[in-house]
């Protein structure tokens, strides 16, 4: 039943493309990958070698959890960032030499606060050396199109978020881009405004009011992707790679309540929550990654309280529920829920199968215990399952003064994560360690300490 619905909703992109071999790609990426250099001479791979084509006439959504490299991918495809390996072609010419015509709509709008709305929209035309009169006329027309007539002399800071993003759209469209890139354009907006802008975008696209031949939108919102896209690419992380790439066959306008719609959303959840297993329907085939290179698991940035909350909710639902429905019940975005699910899974409190989360025995015991016992269970599960926490605790036990500097672990994490991510890993480890009373952290000296050591010191200092 489910697979029948899915076949209605989606189709592998590969077979689709073989149906239309004549379509020439606008942008074609060949084995592009990206490393970021680390201070420690190490390089962190953010994107593993990836092939990707963007063909005319489609809205492509790039979907993935945060940190999976969506923005990096977008920037490489738009020529803003040079791939560390591989090549991006614009109409079969290397992108660094081609005169490409693309625009980006940014999450933070990236408007210039000291320019008026009109000047903001005019600026890209000015860069192209277009006369003031024509510049003005084209910008005014575009402001009309996005529903901003009358606001041309306002400054961005006087506008609401939704209006600001309309200016962002006007600026992007005024240059008549061949490909319109968007990096989470609706994430900074409230739900209603986002919904509104999405449907207006679809309307512009459907009526062909813009000469744009392709829209490439990056998002972490699954429903947004399914609402908008003709084709969805799901990105996995560490390093970023394409997990699945398929066509959405649901006709526009799409109904969120329709069965094909919810089944597709459900399917994507399933793909996203099982990072280690390649999706069965994935046309590109399973991508084997060498797990031995990954020494540390990526700690999901969730609080222990969140894990407990999720487990309690699951118990209310007889220990098993669809993740999609759970997110709905909690009014959570996928990015909020996934780390909690990941954390519970990592600790062995939860199992995820086919997009369903089911509580384990240990998880049930954890959720039903009183607070001290909870901490005990958490502590044991964490030490057993999380390498970083185990290492910190061991180091503390081994040293005579029972303290270890943060630097020590940061260095080790840096071999595997970006500097920023390493810091976040430590922060999460501290939260978990403190909760489970595995260790404590002296923020002033940036050192891990055994919990009792810090207490003794405090007692000694207080006297």
């Amino acid at each position: 039943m489910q697979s029948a619905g899915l076949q209605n909703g989606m189709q592998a992109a590969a077979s689709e493309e073989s149906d239309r071999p004549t379509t020439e790609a606008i942008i074609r990426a060949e084995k592009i990958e990206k490393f970021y250099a680390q201070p420690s001479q190490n390089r962190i791979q953010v994107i593993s070698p990836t092939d990707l084509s963007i063909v005319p006439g489609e809205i492509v959504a790039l979907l993935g959890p945060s940190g999976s490299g969506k923005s990096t991918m977008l920037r490489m495809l738009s020529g803003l960032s040079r791939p560390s390996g591989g090549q991006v072609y614009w109409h079969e010419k290397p992108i660094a030499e081609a005169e490409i015509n693309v625009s980006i709509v940014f999450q933070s709008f990236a408007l210039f606060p000291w320019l008026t709305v009109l000047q903001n929209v005019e600026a890209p035309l000015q860069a192209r050396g277009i006369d003031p009169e024509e510049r003005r006329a084209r910008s005014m027309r575009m402001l009309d199109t996005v529903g901003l007539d009358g606001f041309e002399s306002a400054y961005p800071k006087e506008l609401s978020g939704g209006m600001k993003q309309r200016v962002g759209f006007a600026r992007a469209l005024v240059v008549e881009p061949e490909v319109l890139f968007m990096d989470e354009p609706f994430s900074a907006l409230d739900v209603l405004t986002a919904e509104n802008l999405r449907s207006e975008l679809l309307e512009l696209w459907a009526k062909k009011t813009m000469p744009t031949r392709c829209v490439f939108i990056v998002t972490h919102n699954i429903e947004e992707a399914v609402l908008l896209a003709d084709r969805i690419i799901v990105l996995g992380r560490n390093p970023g790679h394409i997990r699945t790439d398929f066509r959405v066959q649901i006709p526009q306008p799409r109904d969120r309540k329709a069965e094909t719609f919810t089944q597709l959303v459900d399917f994507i959840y399933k793909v996203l929550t099982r990072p280690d297993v390649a999706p069965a329907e994935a046309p590109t085939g399973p991508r084997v990654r060498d797990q031995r290179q990954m020494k540390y698991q990526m700690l999901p940035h969730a609080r222990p309280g969140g894990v407990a909350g999720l487990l309690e909710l699951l118990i209310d639902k007889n220990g098993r529920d669809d993740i999609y429905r759970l997110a709905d019940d909690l009014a959570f975005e996928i990015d909020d829920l996934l780390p909690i699910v990941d954390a519970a899974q990592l600790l062995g409190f939860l199992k995820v199968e086919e997009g369903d989360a089911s509580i384990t025995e240990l998880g049930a015991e954890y959720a039903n215990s009183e607070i001290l016992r909870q901490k005990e269970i958490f502590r044991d599960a964490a030490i057993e399952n999380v390498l970083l926490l185990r290492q910190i605790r061991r180091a503390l036990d081994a040293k005579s003064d029972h303290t270890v500097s943060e630097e020590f672990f940061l260095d080790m994490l840096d071999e595997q994560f970006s500097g920023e991510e390493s810091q976040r890993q430590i922060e999460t480890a501290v939260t978990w360690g403190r909760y489970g009373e595995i260790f404590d952290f002296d923020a002033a000296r940036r050192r891990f300490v055994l919990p009792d050591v810090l207490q003794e010191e405090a007692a000694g200092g207080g006297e």
Partner: protein
Amino acid sequence: MSLQRTLTRSLVMVRTWPVVIDMGVGLCALALFMAIVHLAAYWMGTAVPVSHVTENARSLPVYAFYSVMRIGIAYVLSLVFAIAYGYIAARNARAEAWMIAVLDILQSIPVLSFLPPVLLAMIALVPHRQLGIELGVILLIFTGQVWNLAFSFYSSMKAIPREMLEASRIYRYSGWQRFWQLEMPYAAIGLVWNSIISVANGWFALMACEMFQLKNRNFELPGLGSYIQNATYDGDMRALVSGIATIVLIVVATDQLIWRPLIAWSEKFKFEQVEAADHVSSPILALLQRSRLLGTLTGRLWTRIEEPVYRRLSRSRETRVVQPIDTDGDRRRPSILYWFAGITFALVITWGAVQCALMLRQVSWAELRMLFTGAAATFLRVNASLLLSALWTVPVGVAIGFSPKLARVVQPVAQVLASVPATAFFPILLIGLLKIGGGLGIGSIALMLLGTQWYILFNVIAGAMSIPSDLKEAASLYKFTSWQRWTTLILPGIFPYLITGMVTASGGAWNASVFAEYANVQNRTIQTNGLGAQIDTATADGNFPILLLATILVALMVVTMNRLVWRRLYRLSETRYKLEG
């Protein structure tokens, strides 16, 4: 409708005002032209190292004119240099670390240490005209103004949000457009505030740079600095007071006519998502903006210049192809030119270092010992002045910061006071000191205090104002004793601000030591043992080895103190005493 219009009084105002202002603007332009002609004649004339500065109050306007011109030209040079330097440092990954380290060191060198090399070089460059000496003095003032501007521009460049830069790339801005539409606007506010500090520093340096002894030669240029120095030397109280009054007048006028309008204008460049509630207002700015002549003239002129530039730039490669933003994948090898420049640079540096080493060999052991005791004495004085400043500014600053009413009255006044160069007040303090028979040993601490306390005061006020009111309420709710209030709420709350203020003040105090430990008062020279005095005497005697070593010592101490003490304290304050959610 039309009848109503002609009768509305406010509209009559709108119609008449601009004409008056237009005339004002026109007059200003004329005055500027005359000033340039006058200045050119003076500069191109034969060199007069010692022009006899009279203590006649009637010459004050002319002296003021010369001094203001020197500071103005030095400031324009500083601004241009700072922008170029900051821009290259921020955009060139290879040069960045070096350039910032150099800036850090240059900033810690007292202005007077630059005097002999800069002045001798300029006189050698333009030997027979007044221009040579004048350029030397202007460059000296420049060294007092430029570093903080460069730092400000550099850090603004680094702080531009990534997506804004990406927008400028994807929309294929030329470097020119990016500079005027993104980088300069983003840096504007920082530049305005730092300009205020720079010009104050310029006045500070000017006091000593217009009249000095170098290699037993006297130099005396017409200006307010030499006027005040002469008055001090002769003990002429009346001349002294009128000189200082002139400076205060100029400082206040600059504040009202230039800085306030600039601050109000630069608010437009605030990088904020929503409009802030309070604004700085400036009647002068409002008037200028109403001047029709100025508005249309600059507007037209600007488009005239701008449009052809943009049209031409739109044909260049950088506006046709999207330029990648990350240098990470930069696979280009450095060009031959780059190597050539690098090697030349290294050779020059090595040559300079060898010359310096040779020069330093002339310093005897006795002189070395003297320098070290001097360094110790000045070190103690600098830190004593910091401590004293903190002792009075913390209670006063907290009192002001906790009372918005008081703050509104005191802050503008204190800001102007801080802009008045402490070096102008030194003479009065010195004469008073001699009257009561005190020496310069303790007196110089008071002199340093005069220059540095403001930095700390302002920061403490800002810190006290930043303490959240709910914390204050909690403190009174739980009936904290005043000891508890200070130790648990106020001191931790202002700590980061206090540290920031002390860092700036410590740099200022070192610079002030050169002026404070050595002076010519009432027909005699008084000095005390210290590194500052040693720099002064070495300059006067042309004893360059001592000057060099003393300068190295000062720079070394400032940089080490910053690294070892201030930066650590600052980091501590950031981790432990940050008052936020």
